[in-house]
């Protein structure tokens, strides 16, 4: 590594010089071809802005190379302006903003019943490694507080495990299952990972959002529902799937149920059942993980097509000889 020295200003100079002298790798034509496909509506704009930027720079010395670079930059800007905003997986920002229902001055503590649970959780860890209990305690606090963690709850957990509050904030912001802004009593999580997406999770999310009239991570006016996204929950073989986190009865009645092999129509039915206070059955048939009545657990629709008999013993080994 170079030592910090008085000589280092050169690094800035040579960088910009280098860019000036180098040939631009991407020609205008190349870029235009790449642009065309995703954002065809962009193109009508570009001649105008291009000519504008040409006019702007024509006062100085111009070269074809420079023009090409300008054009490329402009196209890049336009492309970026029309990009889809990145999807947010977490329910909140990575920093806290005070609000009437979420600020460090609000008192928060575990309920009496949960205090016993806290003791039980702490007993799993050596007394000098209390901080190991941070995740189970945050989970318990979230269940108790209607599915989300206000700052004061995280502070309370930090106090119990005797660490600085920021160590708890680090954990709570890392895991997307800890919600740091308000969620509905029923928090619906749509799996968005590749197998579910291929099997139509986007449509399922759209159906839920349209039916409830909310945006992602927004709570319905009655406070009952919110829709979020969760990454792979391990049910790829029964994709697509949603999870319903039920915070309506505190930590005692807390459930976290998987609904697999769902359809846009089906998830709306589930929502309506929840709204009526019913518990939509997790399985259509007892012992089955899927909502599709024609499937048995992860098996194919209409029954098994392979492995119909007991597997044969391995052909190359004589087990009796062992």
């Amino acid at each position, binding site marked *: 590594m170079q030592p910090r020295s008085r000589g280092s200003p050169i*690094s*800035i100079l040579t960088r910009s010089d280098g860019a000036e002298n180098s040939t631009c790798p991407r020609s205008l034509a190349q870029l235009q071809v790449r642009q065309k496909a995703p954002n065809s509506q962009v193109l009508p704009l570009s001649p105008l802005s291009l000519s504008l930027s040409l006019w702007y720079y024509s006062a100085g010395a111009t070269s074809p190379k420079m023009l090409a670079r300008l054009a490329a930059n402009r196209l890049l800007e336009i492309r970026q302006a029309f990009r889809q905003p990145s999807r947010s997986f977490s329910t909140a920002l990575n*920093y806290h903003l005070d609000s009437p229902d979420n600020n460090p001055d609000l008192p928060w503590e575990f309920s009496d019943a949960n205090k016993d649970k806290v003791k039980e959780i702490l007993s799993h860890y050596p007394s000098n490694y209390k901080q190991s209990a941070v995740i189970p305690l945050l989970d318990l606090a979230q269940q108790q507080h209607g599915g989300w963690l206000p*700052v004061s709850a995280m502070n309370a957990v930090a106090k119990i495990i005797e660490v600085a509050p920021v160590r708890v*904030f680090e954990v709570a912001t890392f895991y997307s299952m800890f919600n740091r802004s308000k969620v509905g009593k029923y928090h619906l999580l749509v799996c968005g990972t590749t197998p579910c997406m291929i099997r139509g999770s986007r449509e399922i999310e759209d159906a839920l959002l349209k039916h409830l009239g909310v945006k992602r991570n927004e709570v319905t006016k009655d406070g009952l529902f919110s829709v979020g996204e969760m990454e792979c929950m391990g049910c790829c073989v029964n994709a697509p799937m949603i999870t319903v986190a039920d915070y309506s009865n505190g930590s005692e009645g807390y459930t976290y149920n998987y609904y697999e092999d769902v359809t846009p129509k089906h998830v709306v039915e589930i929502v309506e059942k929840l709204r009526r206070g019913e518990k939509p059955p997790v399985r259509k048939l007892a012992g089955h993980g899927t909502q599709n009545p024609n499937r048995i657990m992860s098996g194919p629709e209409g029954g098994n097509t392979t492995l119909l008999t007991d597997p044969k013993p391995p052909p190359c080994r004589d087990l009796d000889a062992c």
Partner: protein
Amino acid sequence: MLLGMKIKTDTPVAKKAREGVMEFLLMNHPLDCPICDQGGECDLQDQSMAFGSDRGRFTEMKRSVVDKNLGPLVKTVMTRCIQCTRCVRFATEVAGVQDLGMLGRGSGEEIGTYVEKVMTSELSGNVIDICPVGALTSKPFAFKARNWELKGTETIDVTDAVGSNIRIDSRGPEVMRILPRLNEDINEEWISDKTRFCYDGLKRQRLNDPMIRVADGRFKPVSWRDAFAVVAEVVHQVKPEEIVGVAGQLSDAESMIALKDFLNRLGSNNVWCERNGSHHDADLRSTYLMNTSIADLEKADVFLLIGTQPRVEAAMINARIRKTVRATNAKVGYIGPETNFNYDHQHLGTGPQTLIELAERRHPFSSALLNAKNPAIILGAGLFDRKDKDAIFFAVGTIAEYANAIRPDWNGYNVLLLSAAQAAALDLGLVPESENSIESAKFVYLMGADDVNLEKVPSDAFVVYQGHHGDQSVYRANVILPASAFSEKEGTYENTEGCTQQTLPAVPIVGDARDDWKIIRALSEVSGIQLPYDSLEAIRSRIRTVAPNLLHVDEREPATFPPSLKPKVTQKLSQDSFRTAVENFYMTDSITRASKIMAQCSALLLKK
């Protein structure tokens, strides 16, 4: 690593891999080097120059991160952060304030405090140095200068008794910033915020011209000749025992010996250095030095802090104690008023009562001291001002004896001084002849002394203030003689552990000011009692006859005789509990009191 293993660092594969890593690092890094304060001294920039490609292939949007408010000293541009977490580790492990953390995950990962919180640490400025990019930069230095325009001068800090090694970066006549220099024995690689950010005080409230107070009470700028003539006239009108001289906290050894010689030639020996108290004796060096040495504090297993709050008195020594406590779980006992510590400690009591219990082994902490292998007892220099100082030191001597703290291989008897001039002043014998000389003084010579209680000075006394700042003492002065600050002169200082170090001039002297020793030398000539030195070399050979250790620069001279040689005292301990010696960490001397940045810090960070 295995024996015979060959590591190739310049193959095409290695170069390509490095280029790839650099490309990832620069993927989300903004291209704002031209407007970044780190530009020119940026690790990422250097690495990119040495190992990176000249272009990246990333055409997506770069991410942006919300800036955080870390207080008046550290400016944040969090979009530039490359998530190295050095600042998190520094805050947690060295500074001892667990405020910073790594929040979020993946591309949303960012450094922050989650709940907005300013960094209330006396070492917070160091995160500026350890940040490899421009994410954490100095707020007062923002957009002021480029590092290649600056001239670096390797010198030392004088705002406390540690003598941290620093580099003053200046441009023309202006000090632009102060950075730490590595010295493993003293400040390691850190400096305190006071050291780092006091420099704007060097530009404010400066005294440019000699001035005389005229009949209507205002100051009138005069020539040096006229000012000296006035002082010389008064000097010969007063009796020798009515002459008093006080050296200030920031005085160097050369000017202190000149002051002492000057007053001695006038027939007075009432000369001392402020904060040493007016009834100190300098017979045994071991009774006013940190005998363990700063670096060896790391070997201690039990600390007993008596009347000292190291966090505000000497932040670097506190960092050393914290390092020890963290590494070896050393025990810390503290006697004194309620105060902030950033490590585990036991508050044993508030005053001499606890000291007596400890000396008589009635206190539970006595057993910790008895069982300690290397006990370190640290006394605060704030105790020098107490009337029962000798009794306290005697009681501490008893404790040191039974704890076996003073052995040939270990000396655990320490005094933590408060200011840069104290140790050299005592080595040079700046000890007043009589205790209450200031009450009967007719001529008071203040050499940068701004913390002397001037209410006791009789109203008809003639006060000369020689110094660089219009601080507290100029209000009482009759004549002002402008002197140079530590950034403008070559001067010798001795830190609290007895290590001699020198400052070097980084910037030219302000206005018509002169070096302290030159002023006294010139004044002595006008007064007709010319001092026999005309150069720094000559004044240093005079120092050699008094304290030769002050000429061994960058060497620590340990005390030869143990403090137990002190005669037994019959003085009684008073019942008054110990007091804090430093009320405001950010403002302790004339430079820091003139600093706007230090004023902001005191207003914001000391708010309860």
